[in-house]
């Protein structure tokens, strides 16, 4: 181990985000706690990434996110094999690879952390897609545990009063459901606190992302993909607030001392859709080699994008709307508007879109968003065809050629 280990490159060391270590610790502890829930007598709920986790925290239930697990499976390049297994189980290869990997994982405790802890209940919010509904039905049959569905009507052109009333009603039903499964009452004072912490966490996360508006950007979308895990999994706790406070301070320090994510940032790009988990390193190096930094993305900002609808002093009353009007649950034209706002805010020179065959609500409509952006912002755009977890759908040389050609256009412009 000693002889040929190279001395760390000081340039690279300088650029490393120091908080990463702490983040890894938090996530390790979180998964340890979740996996030992049986011993500690705590209940475990599986919940969708866009689902309202706050009531679970109030009820002392450990929330577990199969989608976050899916991302870990993808990042450890175990997606292809698990997806293949799900195909043997009869699931079509065209289905979402988060769902496929998770369904294949459950019976064998596969994946990088030996599977997720068995759920005591399932909470499915369809604000991100119809896939989660079907996926949670599969798991409810498999684990034979109660399933709560929070139905958040889609906002093609606006959120109707009828929908507002319906979702608000379901928030109460959700709490009734949890009270029933846990056999104890909900503490509404605590609910108010957790709601505040959730809003605080979301604001801080937005502030962290906002630091990338600085030139050069102190962090990239690839960093955001990593640090996202907390706002997804532990939203509503003080751990998130403390951690993002530190991370924000670190980012501000980096801006002050001119430390950038990419050494010679010349081009600033916006990323659309989920990360390609098994290729984040390759992609980030690829773009960095062109002096390009992905300064922001539409994905990680989805966990704070609907803050405008939430009143922290009436969290329960307003979360219905906040959870219903997230980025994926709105019309394509409104999505295009959001993309353009981000282009302006981060002063992006180009748009990179991941056409993700796993995720129809995210990907269908991208061609129109691309066209609208080209017409209204007149910046180059690139479309990459891939899949977030199933590495069998990644054509490296083709994608490399496309990125190079796109960067040539940018450089010429």
């Amino acid at each position, binding site marked *: 181990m000693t002889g040929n280990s190279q001395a760390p490159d000081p340039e690279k060391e300088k650029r490393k985000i120091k908080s990463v270590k702490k983040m890894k610790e938090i996530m390790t502890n979180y998964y340890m706690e979740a996996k030992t829930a049986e011993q500690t007598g705590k209940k475990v709920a599986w919940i969708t990434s866009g689902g309202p986790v706050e009531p679970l925290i109030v009820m002392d239930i450990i929330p577990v996110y199969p989608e976050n697990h899916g991302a870990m499976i993808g990042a450890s390049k175990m997606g292809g094999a698990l997806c293949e297994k799900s195909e043997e189980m009869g699931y*079509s290869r065209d289905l979402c690879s988060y769902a496929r990997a998770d369904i294949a994982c459950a019976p064998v405790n596969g994946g990088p952390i030996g599977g997720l802890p068995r759920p005591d209940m399932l909470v499915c919010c369809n604000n991100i897609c119809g896939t989660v509904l*079907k996926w949670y039905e599969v798991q409810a049959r498999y684990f034979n545990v109660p399933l709560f569905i929070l139905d958040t009507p*889609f906002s*093609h052109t606006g959120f*109707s009063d009828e929908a507002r009333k*319906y979702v608000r009603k379901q928030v109460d039903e959700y709490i009734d459901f949890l009270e029933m499964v846990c056999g104890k009452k909900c503490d509404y004072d605590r609910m108010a606190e957790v709601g505040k912490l959730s809003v605080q966490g979301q604001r801080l996360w937005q502030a962290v992302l906002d630091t990338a508006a600085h030139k050069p950007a102190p962090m990239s979308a690839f960093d955001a993909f990593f640090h996202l895990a907390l706002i997804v999994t532990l939203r509503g706790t003080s751990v998130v607030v403390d951690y993002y406070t530190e991370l924000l301070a670190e980012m501000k320090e980096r801006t002050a001392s001119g430390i950038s994510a990419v050494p010679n940032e010349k081009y600033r790009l916006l990323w659309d859709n989920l990360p390609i988990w098994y290729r984040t390193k390759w992609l980030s190096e690829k773009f960095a080699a062109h002096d390009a930094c992905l300064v922001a993305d539409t994905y990680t900002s989805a966990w704070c994008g609907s803050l405008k609808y939430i009143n922290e002093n009436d969290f329960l009353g307003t979360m219905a709307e906040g959870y219903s009007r997230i980025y994926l649950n709105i019309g*394509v034209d409104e999505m295009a508007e959001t993309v353009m706002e981000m282009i302006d805010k981060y002063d992006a020179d180009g748009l990179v879109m991941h056409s993700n065959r796993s995720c129809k*609500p995210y990907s*269908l409509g991208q061609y*129109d968003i691309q066209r609208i952006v080209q017409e209204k912002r007149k910046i180059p755009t690139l479309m990459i065809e891939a899949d977030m977890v199933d590495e069998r759908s990644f054509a490296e040389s083709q994608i490399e050629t496309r990125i190079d050609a796109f960067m040539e256009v940018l450089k010429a412009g």
Partner: protein
Amino acid sequence: MNKLSLFHEIAENPYDYAKKVKKESGKKIVGYFCSYTPEEIIDAAGALPFRIFGRGGDSLADAHLQAYSCSLVRGALHDALSGDLDFLDGVVFPHTCDSIQRLSDIWRINVKTGFHIDAVLPVKLDTKSSGEYMADVLRKFLRDIENGLGVVISEDDLKSSVMKYNRIRSCLWKIYRTRRENPALIGSGDLHAIVRASMVMDRDHLLEELTAFDGSLHGGKAAGKPAGKRVMLAGGVCSLPDIFSIIEDSGGTVVGDDFCTGSRYFEGEIGINGDIMESIAKRYRERINCPAKHSGLLTRGEYIIKIVRESGAKGVIFLFLKFCDPHSFDYPYLKAMLNREGIPSMLFEMEEQLPSEGQFKTRCEAFLEMLQA
């Protein structure tokens, strides 16, 4: 036989038919997707509800939809972009799957086919609050239709449309049942044409023709081929009469289905006492659900087994479009339930509007051969 050729003619050329109706009667035509569209309300507004199925081409859709969208969505968008659907006065998109959800946006941004209504129905159907929301959505839909068509719908209009639909549906049921008892009476393809035509035909005219056809069945001669082995179809949109003929040619007879272009379309009566909107909502909630909607964890499986038992089917053929998420997700559990009951099944995923016939036929023959007589 004359009656049948009318249904076939309309099922094969629905666009020409709608244009003709529009020209002759001045009726407004409202295009719609999916069997969750509350057609009664469109009919009550004096317009013709017209279910949109793409006609096969999809090249114009390439600029808007990735290759991993189903052929139904791609085909419909192609026809809209090509101008073939210009005769429509408006379009209705009920919320169902993720693909239709995005199709609605893309359509609204790119296509000019009159007014555009999204009926954002609940996704779960089995709770009290979702039932209330369903009725709320229908009331909103009624207002949207009134605005779109510039009419006012009275309670009586609505009631008489509901009664008309009840009669149409019960007539279709009777024809289905008659055929189930004696499959040789009507060919599978003929039955499919009847159902297809029912979704686009002027509903008053339809009711007359259906009633007459039903009457002609009793004591009538066999129109179909001698009955083959009984099978049930399960799965998604099937706009292909050929599938039925292929199954017949392979030695099978379709005696039941759970298609939204089949029995799911005409199942369930609407009560006319009490609040009519509540009654309409009730039918759409209680009828067997589409896999894009939630109503219990085993409901669809139990329903398919029930149809198999009632119809005496010896096996089930699953048929759905490639890239159809809701059906693909349900398939493994449905198959497992059928296995446990000892009911054989096979799956055929259709790549395009037209399946590669040879392959389908070979698979069908092999499957049917295996089934008990």
